[in-house]
């Protein structure tokens, strides 16, 4: 495990030093790291899901602490935890189904497995405690009769059921880890393709001769606009430059390179231009459970302008940006203050930062926040890789991706990892 430990430390360090930019890259790397953590974790004979959850939590807690502002890290950790629970649950239900069959048809097999009945009692108790969680929305919708019913009966515990479950264990232990890794791979795949998934929907939203406004730079937005362009839609784009980092300049460059008619404006000109705009399309840093958006600084102003002129305000967000937390949760760090040097040149203003004269306190204070919070009522539509959603639907979407138990990622005190 030293190998993963080094990987974890390396990644922690990168997060701490803010060396990874963009939530997609962060999400992908987090998922890959957790995958290797899972594959390196030695699964005990009993309570394997618990062991996996423990080790993922141990790493995840440190990752989240390393850069609390980058919510994508926490999102992915919770997604992976959820995957483990889901896989475990589906295996259990499969075992239940198998039991029902075997109990009727296959007596021989049953006697074979009775070779190790000693384990059964403890194992069943532990397994049922750790794996049988209240079902999520998805499971409720998908396999209604079986899974919802079976766990409850099993927890009440018929003896014969327990026996067969423990007997099934050896095959299941290998299978669980395998399934989890498969599912994490799928997650990584999803993160990789989220841009395309979102961009596919572009033609449904952008119409001929429309004017689109965006602020700053987001890869999702770029792909989205380009996808519409490729489908022979002709439209114009206004790009607000996104002070103080001016990433809008880069976006404008990219758009022009792909043959889109582009107009670059200052952030402060947004209100002046908004009346000519048909739709605002922006990226996000994170989408909170209440449908509020944490987005690059300046976007709240754009959202207000859009509301004033009844222009649709559309937020593009891959599913890794969906955060199960509410903005009022204490552990959510909404903002990060970056260096004032992005605003002004230290050399030119160093005489104002003079602490030696006067009262010893500077009169000038430069604040450079990274993010804005856009309340859900200002957002018209979210476009994620699964389609368009209303802000008020966000919490249900989130319930599909996360388990309620993982909202606070904290190790149990017993875990020695």
């Amino acid at each position, binding site marked *: 495990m030293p190998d993963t430990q080094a990987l974890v430390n390396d990644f*922690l*360090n990168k997060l701490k030093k803010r060396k990874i930019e963009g939530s997609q890259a962060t999400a992908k790397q987090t998922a890959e790291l957790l995958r290797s953590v899972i594959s390196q974790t030695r699964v005990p004979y009993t309570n394997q899901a618990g062991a996996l959850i423990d080790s993922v939590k141990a790493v995840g807690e440190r990752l989240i602490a390393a850069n609390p502002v980058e919510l994508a890290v926490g999102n992915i950790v919770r997604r992976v935890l959820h995957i483990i629970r889901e896989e475990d649950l589906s295996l259990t239900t499969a075992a239940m189904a198998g039991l029902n069959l075997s109990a009727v048809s296959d007596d021989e097999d049953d006697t074979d497995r009775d070779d190790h009945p000693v384990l059964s009692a403890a194992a069943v108790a532990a397994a049922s405690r750790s794996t049988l969680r209240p079902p999520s929305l998805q499971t409720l919708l998908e396999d209604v009769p079986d899974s919802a019913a079976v766990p409850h009966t099993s927890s009440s515990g018929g003896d014969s059921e327990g026996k067969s479950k423990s007997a099934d264990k050896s095959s299941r232990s290998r299978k669980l880890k395998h399934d989890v890794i498969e599912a994490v791979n799928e997650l990584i795949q999803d993160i990789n393709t989220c841009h395309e998934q979102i961009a596919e929907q572009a033609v449904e939203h952008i119409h001929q001769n429309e004017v689109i406004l965006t602020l700053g730079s987001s890869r999702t937005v770029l792909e989205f606009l380009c996808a519409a362009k490729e489908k022979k839609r002709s439209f114009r784009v206004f790009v607000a430059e996104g002070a103080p980092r001016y990433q809008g300049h880069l976006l404008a460059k990219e758009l022009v390179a792909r043959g889109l008619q582009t107009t670059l404006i200052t952030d402060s000109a947004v209100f002046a231009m908004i009346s000519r705009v048909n739709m605002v399309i922006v990226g996000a840093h994170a989408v909170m459970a209440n449908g509020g958006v944490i987005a690059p600084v300046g976007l709240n102003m754009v959202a207000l302008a859009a509301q004033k002129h009844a222009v649709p305000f559309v937020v593009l967000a891959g599913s890794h940006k969906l955060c199960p937390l509410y903005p009022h949760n204490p552990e959510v760090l909404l903002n990060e203050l970056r260096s004032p040097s992005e605003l002004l040149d*230290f050399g030119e203003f*160093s005489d104002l930062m*003079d*602490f030696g*004269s006067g009262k010893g306190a500077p009169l000038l204070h430069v604040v450079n926040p990274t993010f804005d919070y856009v309340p859900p009522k200002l957002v018209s539509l979210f476009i994620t890789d699964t389609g368009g959603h209303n802000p008020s639907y966000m919490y249900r979407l989130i319930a599909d991706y996360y388990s309620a138990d993982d909202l606070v990622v904290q190790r149990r005190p017993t875990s020695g990892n």
Partner: protein
Amino acid sequence: MGAQKKGAAARVSEDAEDLARHPLQAILLADSFTTKFRPITLERPKVLLPLANIPMIDYTLAWLESAGVEEVFVFCCAHSKQVINYLENSEWSSHPNFSVSTIESHDSTGAGDALRLIYERHVIHGDFVLISGDTVSNMSLTQALQEHKERRKKDSNAVMTMVVKKSKHSPITQQSRLGTDELFMAINPDTKELLCYEDKAEYSKGFISLDKTLIADNPSIVLHNDKQDCYIDICSEEVLSIFTDNFDYQHLRRHFVKGLLVDDLMGYKIFTHEIHSSYAARIDNFRSYDTVSKDIIQRWTYPFVPDVLCGNSAIKVERQGTYRASEVTLSRSAQICPFTVIGQGTKIGNDTKISHSVIGEGCSIGSNVTIEGSYVWNNVTIEDGCQLRHAIVCDGVIMKSGAVLEPGVVLSFKVVVGKQFVVPAYSMVSLLQQPTQQDSDEELEYADSSSAITGAVDKVNGDATSDLSETRYGPTSELGTGGVGYIWSIFEGGNDEEWRHSVAPIPTDKLAKIMLEKDKDEELLTQDGNVVSPSGDLKSDSDGNASDNNDNEGSYVSFEKEVEATFLRAVLENHEVDNAILEVNGLRLSYNLASVDCAGAIFYSMMKWAVESSHNARASELHKNAAAIITKWKKLLKYYLHGIDEEIEVILKFEEICLESCREFSPLFPQILHLLYDKEIIQEEAILRWADEKEGADESDKVFVRQSESFLQWLREAEEEEDEEEEEEEEEK
């Protein structure tokens, strides 16, 4: 075929050199070799002092790590054990791709010694970053490194790239921001080569001089006084060997940089790299400690700010830039103003007001306490009703109720301040007594007394528990009832200069004084300017000249001594004449004098040697000796005699010698003059002009003219004869 192969092989090896990329290395000096942080540095090395609750060295290491440095050698000297222990127990010892190793020394007295020691270890291969452990920066090294490498490819003499930062010029900014002296740099704006580096400490007279060859060699020179030296250098391997060759180099700037700039034999060059948006500053004294702390709190050093740097004991930035750790017990009525850092486990009582301050971990602060612009380190107890203004309070200090710290106070470790006691402004208080042994040279002082002091520290630490009662008796009176510690008398600078480097803001009256001086300077400047114009003020002109002359005289005397020493060495060690010329040339450049002065000085040394080498004062032997020396070294002398003026100067010098330093020569004056004429060192025209000049002088001045009257007579006749002959010849034609 063979040649081709060879070429191919060479190319391969070149490629291999490129491919075998050396990991970027850095030397971190964990000792500043100064005493500016005393008395704190008597007990703890400067690099471990907390800066917004994180040791300084962590900022430096974190920056090096993020700038892509892979291997760091930490050089520790004073309190080396503490530094090594800290590094071993910190996260740096187990970092992937970033190795930190320590080099320990006990007898280094300066950066020069440190670099020489590192050179002996042969650990540096290729370019390296030279930095001191008290530097905070967030600049990216990539571009500077790139520039450095490219220059190296073109010119192997470009050994160093110095990082500078613009700092807005205002009459007092430099002084009041970082507490450093004003710095002048001459930079070639096209090549960014550094041509001149002067800190005002040495040039307090208010003007700097540039070698005229600089102006001749460079098409344009920009003279800056708004640049701040960041003390981050990218050096080539040669720098270490230069230090080894010049065993007297100690100080990085004063000796090394200036040495390289003056020395034109080896032709080493230093370049500058200016950073704009990123931050870099060195903590040199208490004032820069204050300034850099505030810059960090204002996040100029992002991402090296407290909430990012210490990931584990979560510090959060709240509104208006208040940094608060997770477990702070804060009374409801306590007032925490903006730009304050509060460390973990600190308790703050009712109605306490804290503004613009840093409070460490585990402190307990009572009720009705006022803390303003102060730095309180870990585990400090401040009882009810205390007041702290612009003070530094180290670990373990106890302030009894009602104690007051006036601006600029520094309380070292574990000092106890008695009830209601008022510590006067700018006092330094320590448990240790002030070291009495003082050296005039600030740089050396530290090293000289450090061994004795560390011994004392150990003793105090050892005895602290057992002898506490005993120590309580001694200094009680100094810090009120129940107080423990000694108030140091202020010695640095002698006069009232302590406000310059203190954490407290400069008092308004001092500020006014600085401004006034500045105005005066400017007035003087304008007066000087008037001198150039015909309507100039004559008085100021003569004043200026007088001071000028005095100054030149001073430097000339030391120059003469140097030349004499050089000459003696040349004689005793049988140097070649050419080598002696080179050495004297070097001296001439460093003192910035004309060749006239050299001629005078050399002649003086020759005569002096002649006197010293003769055993008795008999005139005949003296004459013989002088003749021998002049014959042997006439080439050296001739080298500097470009014209009549220089020759006359030599004669005048000779007069002076005969009158003042070596009276033995006075009877021999005519003989030696004749000798000089014979050896074709001095032409007859010079001698005659000299005699003519002396014509109108006082009688006392004419002694030697009179003495050599016969020789002069002979010269004149010879000339006339020559003239006549010429005339005759012409007539004949």
